[in-house]
Structures are given as C-alpha cells and as structure tokens.
C-alpha cells in the first residue's frame, strides 16, 4: 500500500517541497530509501524504527520503500523522519489513509519517539504543502511566522498518532507574535564615556545605514562603540524581519521569543573565519555565512587588519549588491546579504602607530603589509571613516553621564523615517541620479565641495558618497530639504583617509 506526506528540505535559506512516498509490499522484509538521500536521511530508517517501537506502534515486517520526490535534488537532514514515520503508519495500515490527505510534517525523531526541532523550520514550513502542518513543538512558533493558521506543534510521535487515530486531542495551533517587549542588547551607549566624535559617527551610521570604519590605537573604545550600533537601529520592518527569521532559523541561531526576529542582528566573526564561513557555501549543503546571518543588521569586523586579504575582498560584492550568489557543482543559491559593515582596526600591527610619540615598534614594511589589507576598493565602500583616539582619562572616571541608546535610537528612527518618506530604505541606498532631487546643495555647500575637489581630496565617487552622508547629517539635524555647508563639511571630515600618515614616503 502507498502513502504520501508532504514535507520540505532547506536549500540556501529557502525551502524546497519534498513529497515523502512510502510503499509497503509483500516480499522479503527490508527498508530502502531512494531519491538522493544523504547519510542523515538514510539513517532515518533506524530512528523511525526505534521511534515507532518505543511509541507502542508496529514496525512492518514487510518490504518498505521510501521515495523522496522530486528525486533530482539531494535531500539532507533529519527533518524527514516524521513524515516518513507518518506515511509508514498509513502504508502499513495502522492509520486510515484519509487522515494524512492534507497533512504536512517535518521534524527529527528521537529513539524514544520524541519530535525534535531541525534547523530551517521557517523555510521548511513555508515550502511544505498541506492544510495542517505538524512540526516539533519547540520550533513551532518560528514556523508559525510563515504559516500562521496551519502549524501545530507536537512533541511526541504517539501524540500525533493518537490524534490522527481519533483517540487523542488535536495538537494546538502555534501562534507567532510580533508584539510584546523587544529584547534589546544590554550594551548601552551610556557606558561609552567621552568620544563625542565617534559617538556622532556611530549615530550617523545608524541613521543612514552607512558603512563605518574606525581606526585607532587600542583603548579608544572602537569595539565598545561598534557593539552598541545594533542597539541604535530601529526594529526590523516586516520584510526584513521575515528574511532574518528565515536566516536565523537555517543557521540555527537563537530565535526570538515570539518567533519573528525583530531586532537587527549583530554579528562579529573572529578573524580566523574561513571564506565559506564568511560568505556562505559548503558542500553538499550550501549554508549561509556571516554576511547572510547579519542581513539587515550589522557585520562587525574587529581587528580588520588581521583578516586575510581574500576574505576582506570577498565582502566587496555583497556590500555592493546586498545579495550573494553561491555556486557549487551541486547547484547555485542566492542568499540575502544586505548588511551594514563596521570595521575597526589599529593603525599598525603593534597598535601604537600614528602617535607622535614614536612608541610604535613596527617596521615600515610590516605597516605596509597591514595597511594593504584594506584594498582601495573596499576602503571606498566606507562612507564614514574616523580616527578614534583614546579618550581623556578624566572623562573616563568622572565625566558626566552620556546619552543612552534609547535617546539616540529615537533620533535615529526619526531620521530613518525621513529617508523612508522620500522612498528609500536608507540614505546609504540613495542612487546617484536621485541626489540632485533629494539632496540639493546650498550654493555655499557647492562651493565647499568644489574647493575640496580642486584640492584633489575627493573623487567623483567620493563626492556622491559625501552627499549621501550629508543628507543623513541634515536628516539627523532638522530634516531640512537642502544640504547646508556645515553638513557637507562634516561629511567631508568623516571621510578621513585613515592610515595615510603611515603609508611611507614613497
């Protein structure tokens, strides 16, 4: 007898529908899985068998064939355990066939019959056909984000069996919620004493979505500042929240309480990261990397000079396009990767360079190597580049309390709203052709830019980026329609040429 249950597997960050077909026939007892299963799928046999037996159900001593259709794509993961078990129960006559007609399922089975969550439940739920979806109770809330009136969470195979058999209660709907308190990161901007310039740059980065580079000796508070950027960003909008929830689910990251990820993610990979870890990849399953995990949030690279050149340069394309396409022999997937890049680095390997005190022990050659990590094209992507000096010691001990993240976030939200009102996600996304329209320069501001151009301090591309930053500056100030000379001057000052003083005389 044949039984079919819908399910899905993850590919990239999206689900791919899979139909689990189980056929039980007379013949020598055996269990075969066909349809490109990988090892974890093939092992389903042992898990399903133990789970059935522990749940007081019967394992058919007949010939069992499991087909995972479409058979052209490779199936991986243990999420197909539950649909296989349910289809097997029907095919072996333990459940009536009509019970599974409109049923989808996903979940890993434990030997005791418990149903365990699998990564990517959001995408799996999205792709699975069926009017009712049985998923692990522990991942039900996230799955409910995409299928609000279909998802039912169950924690044991017997529970599902009893319900389908008409003896037990129907598992309840899982409810995703996008309300309730947002759990913000605990690091608050009020902890950062002094550093008004760097704080301002951080606020601009938050308000305009600009990439930010901070250069300075250790102890300047670069890492502390960067860690607080995510806390300044407004909550994600519906689209971004959904994509982030998917990515978080696939990457197996900690999910939000209500199921929907509403806080912009903050990722800070160590510089030992591999290229695959950074941009995604892997074989046979293509997994999202850090650039995708930080989609719609912040990707912070601390000690940027220590990252291998190859990894830094691999960031150029996603920074530009907001997505990344990974192509392997097994196929090609498109992953979301629209992140805000924040870099922090020392001016030289020993970290003391740039000062006039001559304490730096680095040779010109080693400084050169260090500085070269930051290729000109990548450096160009940073709209805001600031040098961060250690703050005044007296401020650290007895300075006045600083503004908290909540206060700054309100200003940021206001500025972001101004940008959205003009029809753009953030000022960093402003296209060149829109600049004259949304960021018209006051005559004085134009003269200032002209002077900067003549002095050779600015390129054409730099000029455009200056105008977008100036737009953000005005949005934060008062939201005026024109760009003032003061805003342009500040934007220019925020585009310093870091490390220049260290790039030897030649």
């Amino acid at each position: 007898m044949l039984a079919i249950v819908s399910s899905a597997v993850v590919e990239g960050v999206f689900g791919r529908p899979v139909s689990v077909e189980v056929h039980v026939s007379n013949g020598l007892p055996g269990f075969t899985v066909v349809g490109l299963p990988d090892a974890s799928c093939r092992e389903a046999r042992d898990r399903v068998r133990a789970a059935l037996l522990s749940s007081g159900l019967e394992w058919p001593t007949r010939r069992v064939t499991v087909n995972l259709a479409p058979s052209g794509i490779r199936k991986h993961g243990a999420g197909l355990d539950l649909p296989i078990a349910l289809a097997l129960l029907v095919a072996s006559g333990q459940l009536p066939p009509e019970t599974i007609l409109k049923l989808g399922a996903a979940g890993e089975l434990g030997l005791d019959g418990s149903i365990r969550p699998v990564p990517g439940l959001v995408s799996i739920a999205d792709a699975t056909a069926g009017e009712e979806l049985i998923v692990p109770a522990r991942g039900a809330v996230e799955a409910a984000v995409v299928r609000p009136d279909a998802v039912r969470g169950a924690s044991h195979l017997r529970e599902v069996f009893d319900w389908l058999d008409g003896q037990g209660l129907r598992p309840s709907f899982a409810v995703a919620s996008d309300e309730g308190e947002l759990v913000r990161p605990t690091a608050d901007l009020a902890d950062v004493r002094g550093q008004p310039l760097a704080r301002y740059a951080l606020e601009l980065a938050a308000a305009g979505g600009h990439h930010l580079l901070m250069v300075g000796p250790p102890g300047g508070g670069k890492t502390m500042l960067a860690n607080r950027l995510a806390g300044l960003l407004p909550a994600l909008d519906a689209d971004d929240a959904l994509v982030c929830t998917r990515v978080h689910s696939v990457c197996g990251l900690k999910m939000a309480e209500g199921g929907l990820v509403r806080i912009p993610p903050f990722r800070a990979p160590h510089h030992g990261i591999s290229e695959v870890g950074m941009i995604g990849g892997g074989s046979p399953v293509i997994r999202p990397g850090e650039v995708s995990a930080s989609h719609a949030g912040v990707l912070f690279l601390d000690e940027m000079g220590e990252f291998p050149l190859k990894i830094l340069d691999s960031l150029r394309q996603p920074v530009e396009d907001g997505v990344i396409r990974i192509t392997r022999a097994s196929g090609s997937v498109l992953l979301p990767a629209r992140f805000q890049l924040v870099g922090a680095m020392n001016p030289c390997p020993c970290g003391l360079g740039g000062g006039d005190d001559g304490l730096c022990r680095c040779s010109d050659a080693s400084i050169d190597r260090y500085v070269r990590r930051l290729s000109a094209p990548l450096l160009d992507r940073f709209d805001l580049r600031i040098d961060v000096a250690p703050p005044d010691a007296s401020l650290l001990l007895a300075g006045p309390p600083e503004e908290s993240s909540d206060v700054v976030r309100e200003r940021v939200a206001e500025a972001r709203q101004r940008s959205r009102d003009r029809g753009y996600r953030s000022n960093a996304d402003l296209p060149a052709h829109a600049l004259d329209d949304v960021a018209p320069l006051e005559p004085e501001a134009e003269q200032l830019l002209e002077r900067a151009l003549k002095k050779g301090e600015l390129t054409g591309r730099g000029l455009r980026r200056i105008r977008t930053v100036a737009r953000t500056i005005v949005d934060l100030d008062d939201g005026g329609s024109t760009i003032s000379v003061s805003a342009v001057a500040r934007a220019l000052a925020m585009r310093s040429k870091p490390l220049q003083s260290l790039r030897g005389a030649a």
Partner: protein
Amino acid sequence: MTPQQLDENAVALIRLLGLPGMGPVRLRWITSSCSAEEVVDELLRGRLPKVSSNPPRAMGQDVTQQWIEAVGDQSAYAAIEALDAQSVEVVTPQSSLWPFANDPEPPALLFCRGDTSLLTRRPSVAIVGTRRCTSLGRRVATSMAEVLAKAGVVVVSGLALGIDGAAHSGAFDAAAGQHVPALGVVATGLDVVYPKRHKALWNDVGERGLLVSEAPLGVDPSRWRFPARNRIIAGLADLVVVVESHVKGGALSTADEAIDRGVPVLVVPGSVLSPASSGTNALLMDGALPVRSGHDILELLGLTYAEEPAGAIEANTARQLSPVAREVVAELAAGSVTVDELAGATNRSVQEMLALVQTLALDDVVVIDGSRVRLP
C-alpha cells in the same frame, strides 16, 4: 649616445670594484703598491700582487681566493658594457667634476646617473636619519628638504626608507621642473634598486636629479656597503642634518664621517622620551648644533629666502577668521589636539567643531592628521 671613453686604469678599477667583498679599504690596500691594471694582471695569473703593508682586518686567504676566481668572470665586462645602455657616467678623480679633492677616504670612482653638475654644485646639505622614523620626523625631513630645494640648495641623501626617502620626496615637492637639486647616494649598483619600495623615487632622482654610487652596475646590497655609502654622503655635503636617529643607527655613522671631514653636523631636537630621537639628542649633548627648519639652515648658510615670513601669513589669515576659528587656532598653538578636545575647550558641539575644522583644513589654516588637528 656615444660610448664614453674609459682609460685602462678606470676599466681595471671597475673590474676590481666588482669583485666579491671588495670595499674601499681593501681596494686602497691592494692598489697601494702597484696600479690597478697590474693588480688585475696579477690576479688573472692566479696570484696576489706584492703589497708592502699588512692586509686590512678580516682579510683572509678565502677572500683573495674568491678574487682570483672571479677576476676573469665575464660579468665584469658586462658591467662595463652596460654603462652606456644604463646611461651611467663614470666620474674619475681626474675629472673636473671630482668632488673629493680633500677627502680622507675618497671612492676610487663614482658611477653617476643624471645631472653630474650637482656633484660640485654648492651649497649642499645632507638630510639623513633613521628608517624607523616617526610621522613627525618624516614631516620635518620633507618640509626641510622642500625649503632647501626651493632655495637651490642641493639635497643629499641615501634613498633609504624613512627620513632619507622623505627628504628627497620633499625636494621633488619643491621643484616641479626637469632639474631638481636632489643628489642620491646609494650602496648598490645603479641598476639594482634598493629598497624596492623606492623604485619611483630612485628613477626620479636618476632622471631629474643625480644618483651616484661607488659600486659598479649589478652589485647587490650588502650590509657593509651602507656605512661606506654614508662616508660619501658626508663627503658630498657642506652640512649634515640628522633628523631622527636611534642610539645605534646608520645616521650616526654619517654624522661620524661628517665630523671626520670637518663637516658641521646639525640635529633636529626631539622629545627626550622618543626612542627615534634618542640618537639625535645624544648628538646634541655632544655639542651638535640644533636646527628647527629649513629656514634655520638657510640662515646658517647665509642664504635668504623669498618666502613671506611665517608671522605675516598668520596675520593675513587671522583677519579673515571668525571668532570661533581664532579660538581654535589659539588652542592649536600649543600642539595638536583632537576634535573632541577642541569642542570641549571652546564649549561648542562636536558637530559644529567638525564642520569648522574641515572648512579651516580646506583653507590650509589647519591640518587634519588622523584623529588630531594641528597647525600646518
């Protein structure tokens, strides 16, 4: 270009100079009793010529054996034949351009590329210093050379990383034309760029200034050649300025050579806490004369400069500055500060201060240097 006429003696000298481990001291020793041609002949016969004096220190049998093996080598001829192709001119002691008339340890020959008239042009000032310099030292060297080159003073230096390179790039900043009074003394053959990173500067000096070496073409860098090169720098300069030097540094050997030749040594004073100034400060303690800028040197040389004195410029710009800007300039008088500190000191918002500083920087009233702001 017509091939230059080299006499027998010069050819023999070039062949000797190209031998492994042949430095000025050993060359002087081996040619002390007979001419260079005779030495070459003897070596070709597989023996050392008779020399009345004792060989210099650390001169063993192995060295002479190497010479005998290498003397017949074709590369010596190649180095001579390539001279014209590399546009290298050989200046001998017989030349009217020979600058080492009274030198205690003159080179045997000088390989030159560029404007050889710079050899005898006076005045000339050597600007030397450590390779591991601070950004301040680099700045001092650049601006000093710029002022000197503008006044037509020949800037002599060693083309090393750090201060040396900074000095010559300053000289090129000053003069845009074809002829720049920049004289580079290097320790390798003129076709062996060392350090590689200074290739552009090396070519510039050879084309628009003058590049000299006592090593024939094709000679690679060796440790001992650099102190030897320093004595030529000292021999070509009327004054030697040490901008920055550690307690042990090549720049100090240039200073020693200068003192041996009676060439005054000038020193740029540095912080007593800066390791990069420890050597120069020690020179000051020993009685070297301090200098602060190129103008100080011009004054010592008895030259005047056409530029407006600094005070007048300040007065000019000060008139156009807003009251806040004047406050900023006053704050900066004591040294560089960060924008944050400026905002605090003048009681302005950091936003306002940022805009102001950038505007002033475009007007060249202040310079933004990393996180710090300073007067130019």
